[in-house]
């Protein structure tokens, strides 16, 4: 395995926490580090102000206290929401949505495996009928995960009907989990967002949708917020999946996304292997992020 750089903020913050005392530089460096981690100017300002206030209150001059405060603050802000997946329905229908190229299909493959590991039977629906070879890509993943796959009957079939057939299949065969892949769509395309609404309506005729997961790429910047808002409006998103955390991106924008939208992060993807998907634990995430 190739050596991989850590995605923690640690390196950037070493200067801050390694210093002897807290001074103006500390705040500048802290601010820069947070902005570089895609926290965004607004959240960064808030965090820095909060820590500044705390430092004043406790009259500390030790930068390591700043580190601890930052970790606690991030954790506190992340753990305001409940990251548990609600999959108690049978079949439990999960719709996976997101913009192009964030890793929806890969996430579904990993998620199917994740559920299979708990002994659940899984069927995936290839409702991405738009992108070339997306169906095959999903089928390959499904095979690796040991899940069934429902393919469109013909090219360019209406995605909603594929979704419908998938749920139908699950009900017929008693499959416990249904995961539906959708085509990547930019959140600014009204027509495509409406299509998403349709998929949802059609599926709901068969069974209630347990989760709508929005996949966000950790390398995304502040645009992640705009994406989340649009998908909530049109797709009724219930949780977030953060992917590509194995790169150098920190995904700091999720704090803003969580708070602005009230949506919890539910899963995180950290690699291309089929096992590289885990549940989200605020404590661990904050620990990794801040170091």
């Amino acid at each position, binding site marked *: 395995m190739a050596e991989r750089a850590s995605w923690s903020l640690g390196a950037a913050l070493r200067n801050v926490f390694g210093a002897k005392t807290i001074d103006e530089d500390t705040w500048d460096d802290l601010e820069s580090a947070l902005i570089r981690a895609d926290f965004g100017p607004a959240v960064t300002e808030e965090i820095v102000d909060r820590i500044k206030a705390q430092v004043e209150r406790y009259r500390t001059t030790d930068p390591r206290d700043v580190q601890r405060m930052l970790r606690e603050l991030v954790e506190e802000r992340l753990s305001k929401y409940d990251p548990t997946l609600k999959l108690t329905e049978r079949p439990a229908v999960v719709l996976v949505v997101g913009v192009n190229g964030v*890793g929806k299909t890969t996430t579904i493959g990993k998620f199917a495996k994740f559920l299979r590991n708990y002994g659940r039977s899984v069927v995936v629906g290839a409702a991405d009928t738009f992108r070339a070879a997306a169906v095959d*890509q999903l089928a390959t993943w499904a095979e690796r995960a040991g899940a069934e796959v429902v393919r469109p009957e013909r090219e360019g079939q209406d995605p909603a009907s594929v979704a419908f057939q998938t749920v139908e299949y699950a009900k017929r065969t008693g499959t416990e989990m249904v995961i539906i892949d959708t085509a990547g769509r930019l959140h600014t395309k009204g027509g495509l967002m409406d299509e998403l609404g349709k998929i949802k309506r059609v599926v709901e005729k068969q069974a209630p949708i347990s989760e709508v997961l929005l996949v966000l790429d950790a*390398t995304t910047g502040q645009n992640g917020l705009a994406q989340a808002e649009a998908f909530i409006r049109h797709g009724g998103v219930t949780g977030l999946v953060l992917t590509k955390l194995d790169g150098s991106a920190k995904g700091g924008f999720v704090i803003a996304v969580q708070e602005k939208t009230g949506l919890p992060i539910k899963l995180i993807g950290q690699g291309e292997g089929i096992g590289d998907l885990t549940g989200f634990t605020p404590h661990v995430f904050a620990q990794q992020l801040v170091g």
Partner: protein
Amino acid sequence: MATFGTLSDRLTETFKNLRTKGKLSAADVDGTVREIRRALLDADVSLDVVKSFTATVRERALGDEVNRALNPAQQVVQIVNEELVGILGGQQRRLQFAKNPPTVIMLAGLQGAGKTTLAGKLAKWLKKDGHTPMLVAADLQRPNAVNQLQVVGEQAGVQVFAPEPGNGVGDPVRVAKDAVAHAQRAQHDVVIIDTAGRLGVDAELMKQAANIRKATNPDEVLFVIDAMIGQDAVSTAKAFQEGVDFTGVVLSKLDGDARGGAALSVASVTGRPIIFASTGETLDDFEPFHPDRMASRILDLGDILTLIEQAQQAFDEEEALKVAEKLATEQFTLEDFLKQMQQLRGAGSLKKMLGMLPGAGGMKQQLENFDEREIVRTEAIIQSMTPAERRNPKLLNGSRRLRIAKGSGMTVTDVNQLVQRFEQAAKMMKTVARGGVPQVPGMGPIPGAGGYGGGKRQAAKAKKKSSGSRSGNPAKRAAENAALASGATPAGPGGASGSGFGLGGGAAAGAGAKGAPSEEELAALQKLLGR
């Protein structure tokens, strides 16, 4: 708090505050610079770039340059514009072709950046230019990436070289090498190599990319980057520069609402030019990147040049001259109107063209919601008329209108609206053709020379209103005419100091001074108008 919104929205907002000032104090400049900084950060421009950018702008804004200017606010806009163009790479760069074909183009980038789709777009674009490109499936990592490339290749109508099935099987370096040899034999003059997506921190895969590069000695290595990427753009771009040393950048997914951050950062950090921009899902949504136009887009000054180019492509010049003549002699009929509409449809998406108008950033939503089928409906109505009726709409009495409505599957009200709008539009176009300033009915007069920005906004408003109703098209024509008419203004009176739409005026003046719309382009523009 306006935390969202695109870079252009934010900057526009900032400049709005600035424009009302007669003279700039140091505090004003500081405030503006702070706003610019925030706007840029919100737009995901990398922190280092933001720091140096704001420092330069501040320095220049406080310098003599501004104090001597007539309208300091406009000057600041111009400074920001110039600096943006500077960072974005100044001149537009073209693809470098090899002296001895085949020209080898290698694509690299993160997962999900859009490499495979881009390969298809590039191939199609090159094919249109008379090349014989071949696609090479060297992404053997991602499940079914090879399949995807084959489908894309089929759509683009180009050959795909895929000796390995992919899904982790095969050696991409060998494939790439064989491909070049194959291309030589099969007389393909361009080879486009699609490689696997890789993370900047993955040393092993990075080495593989470097090996592909070494094995094929490409003429261009294009780094494909998602326009939505955040602060990580810098470290990723640096990693790829060190790993494979790309020669140019392609910005993908520019059709979203993330507009410029990544472009600015990558261009400024790596010093490599952005060559192409990818702006949609179909294989035709692909265009060469123009730094100056991108800067204007970021500043929401619109992308008039691209608009004109597209219009020129779509409108037959002779036809345009004929129409202009008809306009001047008041013989413009519904028949001509129909013909124009059909030409316009040939230009591609109306939405996209409208989006290039200055100030259009703010009405994205409306643009998205605008139903292009409106045009089809309008066409249907006109086509249900007899030639005599088309030539002379005054013939249309109640029973004729009823017949037309039935024939086109619309209601009489729709027909009435169309006729009414046509008359208004014709009147307006007559005025424009004679060199006057059009009055959009019910909108009040359009501010004089400053109408560059203003006219469009008003026309845009007119369009917005009508888009809900039957015919977006006459208004669209109006908008376009207004755009063309005012586009010609900078040649004449120049800026509009103190105008309510100073931003537009200032920018036009600025652009004129920099020679952005050259004499030639203006001439072409006027020809288009038939003046």
